[in-house]
């Protein structure tokens, strides 16, 4: 028989839920509502009046080539960083799970990058990649065209992707390792006895069994890459050179907080929110179907 704990009175239950509802309302629905309102008006930064303009802000945003550029860059960034961070995270996790030499030490070390805050990591990577001062300067002494993220947009983008993936590989590593260790040893041992090699075991046993984690990380990586790139971009490139690393979130920050165009930034936030919702919906609709939760 199923056991269930229930509250004798509805009011008690409501009281338990109330703090949570209040929090969600104050920190999510209220700001979203305000942003939605601003997106349809022209808001003056110091207050004192705003005018209803309907869809003008959205029209302006979509008519802007630079905005489409920022959407495309954000999507490329999401794809590249998810691939790199999940790929490396998985590789390291499989190696640690196998119990290779010194794996206990590595298991601890591999987690560290995630603990480094984004701006600090960005500062370090900026130095590493600086063509005239950092470690890369030795490589480019003879040829400045070879590496110059201050002028070449592709170089700057590469630099940001590497820095971000370095940090998020650690995050993926934690989850992959936990998932791998949750696989019953008996299954692995049985397949080993049947003569399956390491790669075969990874492909046929481990990967299929950790697909739920894989899916979770995919959703989180893509969502996070849209939002979390800010700290790195702000320190490393300021969105430059010439908008080459200006992602959607950085553009929202710049237009809203630095340019004081609150309405334009609000409209962009709404677009970003919808994009995230659509992306996540598609992931659940088409990828989750192929996943088996045991």
């Amino acid at each position, binding site marked *: 028989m199923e056991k269930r704990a229930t509250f004798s009175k509805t009011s008690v239950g409501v009281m338990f839920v109330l703090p949570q509802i209040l929090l969600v309302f104050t920190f999510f629905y209220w700001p979203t509502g305000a942003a939605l309102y601003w997106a349809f008006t022209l808001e003056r930064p110091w207050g004192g009046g705003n005018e209803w303009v309907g869809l003008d802000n959205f029209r302006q945003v979509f008519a802007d080539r630079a905005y489409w550029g920022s959407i495309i860059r954000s999507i490329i960034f999401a794809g590249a960083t998810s691939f790199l961070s999940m790929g490396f995270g998985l590789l390291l996790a499989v190696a640690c799970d196998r119990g290779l030499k010194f794996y206990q030490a590595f298991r601890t070390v591999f987690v560290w990058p995630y603990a480094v805050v984004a701006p600090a990591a960005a500062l370090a990577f900026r130095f590493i990649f600086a063509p005239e*001062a950092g470690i890369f300067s030795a490589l480019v002494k003879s040829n400045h065209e070879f590496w110059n993220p201050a002028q070449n947009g592709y170089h700057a983008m590469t630099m940001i992707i590497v820095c971000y993936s370095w940090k998020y590989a650690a995050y993926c590593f934690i989850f992959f390792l936990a998932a791998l260790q949750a696989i019953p040893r008996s299954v692995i041992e049985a397949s080993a006895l049947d003569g399956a090699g390491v790669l075969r075991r990874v492909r046929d046993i481990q990967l299929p069994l950790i697909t739920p984690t894989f899916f979770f990380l995919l959703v989180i990586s893509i969502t996070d890459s849209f939002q979390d790139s800010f700290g790195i971009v702000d320190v490393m490139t300021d969105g430059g050179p010439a908008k080459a690393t200006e992602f959607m979130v950085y553009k929202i920050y710049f237009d809203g907080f630095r340019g004081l165009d609150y309405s334009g930034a609000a409209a962009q936030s709404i677009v970003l929110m919808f994009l995230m919702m659509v992306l996540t919906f598609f992931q659940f609709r088409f990828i989750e179907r192929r996943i088996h939760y045991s």
Partner: protein
Amino acid sequence: MKSKLIATAATLLLAATTSAFSAERVKFEMWHGLTGDLGGAVEEVCKRFNDSQADYEITCTSQGSYDNALQNAIAAYRAKKNPTIVQVFDAGTLDLLLSEAYVPARKLMADNGYKINWEDYIPAISNYYANSKGELNSFPFNSSTAMFYWNKDAFAKIGKTSAPKTWDETFDALKALKSAGYECPMAWNYDTWPIMEQSSAINNLPIATKGNGYQGLDAEFAVNKTKFVDIVKNLKKAYDDGLVKIKTPDTGATIVQAFSNADCQVMLSSIADHGTVGKTQKPDMQWEVAMLPTLTGAERHNSLVGGASLWALQGKTDGEYKGAAAFFNFIAQPDSALFWSTRTGYIPVTKSGFEFMKAQGFYDKAPYKGRELAIASLNASPITENTRGIRLGGFVQIRKEMRDALTDIFANKVSVDDGINSAVERSNAVLRKFEKTYAGKMLP
């Protein structure tokens, strides 16, 4: 148990009353955007004010940057928790001016019984911040202008003992420096401030219609129609010839660092960096500042003031406004100017402050010598429509558009004309949106 509780309550009460007695000074807050050494200097100014009188106590808090100071002040103002005084940088002036969030400087001082000689402010500074009637709404505080920094040792090698006066002479000198074996004759960082804003003023070129925006929000950005285009073309050519090198944090060194350690021989930067260069320079390096070069044949006009001003915000008590007025009065005193300019590279904002510093021999001594040229640059001519200042909405975005265009131009992605034209077009979209946001508002 109960007696213990009463005892605690009594102690608390006593503590409360004693602190009430000692805290009879009116406290008020100022938020500013300076950090590091300059932030420390602001706090010293506040401490000097607190030590100078017993009625008021100012607390000065750095918000991390000009942008943050402005954003945080806006957020706080909207929540009615704003500080009494906020420091707002030049490009943030217009939004505040069009709002009802501030107490005009004149009214504040008159209400609190201070007689300020408004004519005492250096015209290039007061005109920049003043409204259409020529009245100041905020107090110019940390003020600077762009200067030409040159390495005297390097120039001596090419037989020059003075700084070039025109751009043509500058490029000739850069060529000679290159031939003399200098890897980086001039450092540049895509900054629009010296080459667009300052150079336009110095050569009396408009950067926008309607008197650079002072006559109305319908002004149009127009640098693509002036000789600014030639300045960029020549700079680009110099870059292609290896006379100009890009120095930004992502290449490894800023222009100030590159100049201070004698890697680069020339830079255009704020007079506020005078102190930094002096403190961080390569030992025994001989260097000086000069006024920015003009275009050949152009008459020199005054340069623009940069930096920030202090605003009194609405919604405070009379006592706090009295304190704010006392503080503004304090920083306007000549010896405050002397302290401020000695401690930082900023210039005095009043004529009397400047005269006082001259009389004290401030500008004769080594580390400060040359800074008087910044005042000379600001005073180079009477103010014209083109040299008054810039009053354009969304100017932070406009600067970014131009900087992005310059980056593309220098990376050979677009031609000089196309790059500047598209930046102007995008900037005008920003201006039109700003105009619509403040529809029905007149410039005060």
